[in-house]
């Protein structure tokens, strides 16, 4: 049931993107996600898609593994695009029936929203596809380091994060095991209405929770037994360093962000002019 979930799964290849510093990747991902919300024109979307494809090819990931992450939010995409399509009421009316109206503006808003979501999720999934959970948690800790000044428990939070990330696959595996066991007792999770299905999940959720608490207890004891404490005296086995590749990646993404922002604010939509060249009357 959950075997095909790929969001959050590390995909090992020996690429330049994989070797980047996790902190840099984390910050660039945030930059990418923010920039996506500034895109105004189809030109901007094409540029973003191009950048994304360049990163995917550099990372030597099969495009399908990136697209798989979209599957998880397919429902949200379809739902919001239908809402957008039928209820945006500005502009030229193309089709009308009872309370449903499709307008030209509505169609464009919908297409852009779908593009935005698809690019957003694929971009974000690149981070987890190319960075191991441990690297990621270390990166977060390092980025949050200044917060120590205001007595924020950075190390504790980082440890909580690493543990949480570490246990995602374990919990998936466990969920699968419990589902298998209940199916073997004749449970069915894919028939009946919404409530019937939700109720059918109880025999899975209850043992899952019970086992998680048990596991948390055991882990706490094990850490205690090895004298774990989150003081500043703790040292790292692997120290991350910013290298040449990181600077290249940084410059690449910054120039991409600049183009998108310039397109939106300074040139007052050069992209939109380009859109007209390409799509002409469709707009």
């Amino acid at each position, binding site marked *: 049931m959950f075997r095909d979930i790929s969001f959050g799964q590390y*995909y*090992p*290849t020996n690429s330049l993107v994989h070797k980047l510093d996790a902190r840099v990747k984390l910050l660039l991902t945030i930059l990418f996600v923010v920039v996506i919300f500034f895109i105004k024109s189809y030109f901007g979307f094409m540029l973003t898609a191009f950048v994304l494809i360049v990163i995917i090819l550099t990372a030597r990931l099969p495009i399908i*593994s990136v697209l798989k992450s979209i599957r998880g939010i397919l429902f949200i995409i379809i739902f919001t695009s239908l809402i957008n399509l039928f209820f945006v009421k500005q502009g030229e009316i193309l089709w009308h029936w009872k309370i449903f109206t499709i307008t030209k503006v509505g169609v464009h808003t919908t297409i852009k929203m779908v593009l935005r979501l698809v690019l957003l999720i694929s971009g974000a999934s690149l981070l987890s596809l190319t960075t191991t959970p441990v690297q990621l948690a270390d990166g977060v800790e390092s980025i949050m380091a200044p917060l120590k000044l205001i007595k924020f428990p950075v190390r504790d939070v980082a440890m909580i994060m690493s543990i949480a990330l570490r246990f995602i696959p374990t919990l998936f595996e466990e969920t699968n*095991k*419990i589902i*298998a*066991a*209940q*199916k*073997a*007792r*004749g*449970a*069915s999770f894919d028939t009946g209405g919404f409530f019937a299905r939700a109720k059918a999940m*109880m*025999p*899975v959720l*209850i*043992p899952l929770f*019970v*086992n998680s608490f048990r596991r948390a207890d055991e882990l706490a004891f094990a850490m205690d037994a090895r004298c774990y404490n989150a003081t500043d005296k703790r040292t790292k086995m692997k120290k991350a360093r910013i290298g040449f590749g990181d600077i290249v990646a940084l410059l690449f993404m910054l120039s991409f962000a600049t183009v998108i922002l310039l397109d939106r604010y300074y040139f007052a939509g050069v992209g939109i002019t380009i859109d007209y060249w390409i799509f002409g009357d469709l707009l």
Partner: protein
Amino acid sequence: MSAIELKDLTYIYSKKTPFEKRALDDINLSVEEGTFLGIIGETGSGKSTLIQHLNGLIKVQNKKVSSVVVNGLSATEKKTLKQLRFEVGIVFQYPEYQLFEDTVKKDVAYGPKNMKLPQEEIDARVRRALEVVGLNYDEFAERSPFELSGGEKRRVAIAGVIAMQPKILVLDEPVAGLDPVGRSEILALIKQLQKDVSPTIIMVSHNMDDIAMLADRIIAMYDGKIELDGTPSEVFCNREKIKEIGLDLPLATRLRDKLVEKGINLPDGIVTPAQLEASLAAIKNGTAKDEVGGGDNV
């Protein structure tokens, strides 16, 4: 007709990714009704994948080539899948971690309820299943499964499967993590189950002594293939192969080999303590009196 018929069964995990793994490699297996089949093999040799094919929990990957037929029901047939699930009861590893209801009675009733049996039949089956696993109905029925001891929880979980009265019972490591008393009680229970509930039993175990004692037939798996297949004596006589695929010999067999090294003339094919004892007794009563003395000292 055999109870289980596997033909050319191959299964590959995470196909076409860097994690690709061939869990089953062209397995052919036929199990007669009434057999106690033991499955041995290292971790990752494909045992779990194999048993989950038997009730369609894992779907046959290549329907054109492979086939899984259990009691005349094909595991690739969607319509009879539910029926197949009730025909083959699987007790997974650490089954106590799958308990979820607030009373023992309700938990055991989960399977029969899914079978859509009438309420009186469900009650009768729950009562019987609990008695079979050695839990007093009046004492345990209304208790929460979470407050029981480890061994008791496992009995409840097993009762949950046998309440469906499956014709074939599959147990994956049924005694893992239990104390010695719990172990021997559960093993005795399994032997009893074959007589009372499920004539055909398949048991996966890492413990060669348990398997040698209980099974009529053993298959040893390695890297998705069946490497050895036969009676316990036949399988464990193949000492080199057993070692090669990362397994051990039963204690009785190792003791027999040591005794043979010391010059006591024991027959090959001894796999259980009872057999060893019988062979030693035969020597004692027979002619080779001086050798028996040596045997007793070891």
